[in-house]
Every structure is written in C-alpha cells, then in structure tokens.
C-alpha cells in the first residue's frame, strides 16, 4: 500500500484515526522504507523540540512576569523595545490618551524650550538633565497641594518619597503650554522625570482648561506610571507635605 508523505507525517504527529494508523503499522512491518521515513519525521520533531525546549527551563525575565501581573515595567536604559505597544486607554483622560503612548520627553522638552526664552521656560536643560525652572520650580518648592489656590498657575498633585530617597511631586500647568509631569528633588533643583504635553497645546482652549482642572487629582497615564515606579510607600499626607517643604525637600 502506498502512503503519501503527508500521511506519514500525520502518523508521526499522532494525527491519524486508528484505522489508518493500523494500516500504516502493518505496512511498516513489511516495508523498511516506510519505517525509515516515519523515523525521520519523528527524529526531526525531536530535534526541533530539543532545540526550543531549552527555553522552558529558563525562568522568564522579570519584565514579562511584571507585564502579566500588571506591574509597571521599569524603563531600562538602552533596552529599546522596537515594537509599538498599544496601551489601554484611560477613559478619564481622553485628551491625554494619544500622548501617553507617544510621550518622548526630549521632543516635548525641545518644543517647550525652543519657544521660550530661558528665563520664563517651565523647564530647562542643564548637564543633560531636565530641570524645572521659573514658576514651575517655585511651585514645586513652595506650594502645598492642601492649600493651593484653585487658579494657581501650577497645580501640585501628589508628593511622595522615592525609592532613591528623594522627594518627588507631580504637577500640572496650562501656560505657556499644557504640561503635566513628575519632578524629583535633586540637591537644590527639581529634576523632571516625566513630562507629558497636551497635543493640542493651546493655552486657552476649553480642552486644555478641562485637563488642567482635573490635573490636581488625575494625571496622564505616563505620569501615573512613573509615580508607581518611583514611589516608596504611600504619598505624603498634608502634614508630611508641609513638613517636607519646611526642610526644603531634603
């Protein structure tokens, strides 16, 4: 009896009904060539498995376990992930949804800086770091979330102590452009860790105004993620916030 190569492969893969299987086994007994071809298919299968099964013995990288468990991934220097990752959108922040994914601090900072004279810019670049400047720096140093005016030019969100032992604060502002971000105390400066910009960017539009009003309590996803990654323990309460300000955040 003649069997096609696909049938012999299906035998090696255990995909045949019992009748065909018996027929092949009977043929194998009489025809060493059929037995040889089946052995070859099985051997290839074994060889492939032996090659790729090795990965089963490795513990999966932490970043994959974190991704499955929903722990925010730590951004690694030089570990460029070339695949575009779709992030679930946060319905509370439709105006931020598009930028959360496209947040690239350098681009945004470049846009902010290019338009501004250094004296009035909310952020400046120095020694490869991005530092808060002007009214933003002042608000980060002086303003308390618990007592800030509703129309303050910069709104402070949460303050907390980072894993590195620095005080960090989230902020939002809508002039000269709608920005939200996270800054951490670095000696006498505020180092900007994450900065998100409203893609519209208009100072007076209803959209950025709405974004601004919410900014004290809600932040773009990218900023929240940075908080999650950096925070040690809980955010400061009003008393701890005031105490930290009184020691100049050191």
């Amino acid at each position, binding site marked *: 009896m003649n069997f096609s*190569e*696909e049938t012999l*492969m*299906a035998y090696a*893969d*255990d*995909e045949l009904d019992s009748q065909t299987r018996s027929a092949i086994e009977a043929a194998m007994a009489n025809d060493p060539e059929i037995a040889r071809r089946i*052995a*070859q*298919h099985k*051997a*290839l*299968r074994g*060889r*492939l*498995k*032996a*090659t*790729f*099964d*090795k*990965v*089963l013995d*490795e513990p*999966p*990288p932490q*970043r*994959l*376990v974190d*991704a*499955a*468990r*929903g722990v925010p991934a730590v951004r690694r220097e030089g570990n460029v*992930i*070339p*695949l*575009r*990752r*779709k*992030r*679930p959108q946060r319905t509370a922040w439709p105006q931020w949804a598009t930028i959360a994914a496209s947040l690239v601090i350098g681009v945004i900072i470049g846009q902010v800086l290019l338009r501004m004279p250094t004296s009035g810019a909310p952020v400046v670049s120095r020694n490869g770091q991005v530092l808060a400047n002007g009214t933003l720096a002042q608000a980060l140093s002086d303003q308390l979330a618990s007592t800030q005016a509703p129309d303050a030019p910069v709104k402070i969100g949460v303050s907390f102590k980072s894993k590195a032992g620095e005080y960090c604060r989230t902020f939002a502002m809508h002039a000269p452009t709608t920005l939200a971000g996270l800054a951490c105390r670095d000696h006498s400066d505020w180092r900007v860790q994450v900065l998100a910009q409203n893609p519209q960017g208009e100072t007076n539009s209803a959209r950025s105004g709405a974004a601004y009003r919410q900014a004290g309590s809600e932040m773009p996803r990218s900023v929240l993620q940075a908080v999650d990654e950096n925070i040690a323990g809980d955010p400061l309460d009003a008393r701890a916030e005031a105490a930290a300000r009184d020691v100049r955040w050191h």
Partner: protein
Amino acid sequence: MTVPDVISSTDVRGMHASLDQLREQIVDLLPRLRRFARTLARNPHDADDLVQVAVERALARSEQLRPDSRLSSWMFGILRNAWIDETRTRGRRNRIFAPEELGENVGDAASESHADALSVQDAMGRLPDEQRMAVGLVLVEGLSYKEAAEIMGVPIGTLTSRLARGREALQSMLDDTTGAMQ
C-alpha cells in the same frame, strides 16, 4: 486530537476566572509563549519583546477570551498576530541579521549538541514565515493540526501542506549541514 505536551491545570480558563487569576495563568504560560516566540523571532530578545506585546494585548482585551476557549490557543493567536504586525512594520530585518549572529555563535559552541541546536534554529530562520509558524505550533508546541489551523486562521489542509513543506525544507537543510539523521 493530540494532547499538547504541556498543559497546566489552569489552561482552560474557568467560567468565573477573575482578571487576577488570568494574570497568574498567563505567568504560568510564559515559558511556552517564549518558546513559541523563539520559533518565530529567532533572536531571543525580539522573541521576549513579542511575548511582552502579546501579554499586554491579551490583558487589554481579556473580555474577548471566551470561557470555553483554551487560554494557550488564544494567547498563541495573539502572539502570532503581534508577530505579523511586527514583520510588516520592520520588514525582513531579522532575516538579514539572524544568520550572521548565529554564525558568530557557532564558533563558541562548546558541544556538538549546541552546534546542532544552532543549525536547527538557523534552518528554522530560513523557512518562509507561514511554514515556520506551522512547524512551531505543531512540532515544537505540540498542538494538534486543528488547533494550529485555528490559530493561523487557515483550513487544516492548508496547515498540513505548510507543515509538510516546512518539514521537507528543514530536513534537506539539516541533512546538508549535519549529515545523517539519528
């Protein structure tokens, strides 16, 4: 139906599995997802990136997982789609780089089994994408023809012919490099 060689007890998702349970089931599946991704991407780092994308996509659309469907099949399908998106985006960059990287590693091979593994990976990398996927799902992952065909979205006949062609190509490539089969 062929029983896949590794089935965790949690593989079939229960009717009332919570998102947290799903997350842990996905953690349990990570080794197999990584193995499947390596049959596709060849470069281990790209393979893990692919797994990460698949995991994130799966969690973002967990409501699409039907209670009666096998989590592993669903995840393999998502991983496959992510890989297709990826190859479309990046063209065939890996195809150009992978053989060279593998060639460099061959010199480091401490044992014959290592050298053999590299030649198998190298041969896999030379297969057309659809054949490689069929080989990966059936021969490496141990899925049934039916499951593999469903994941690839093709009739079983198409799957078996891709599998057969992939197998023949592998066989001839490996015969060329290492001689007789055991």
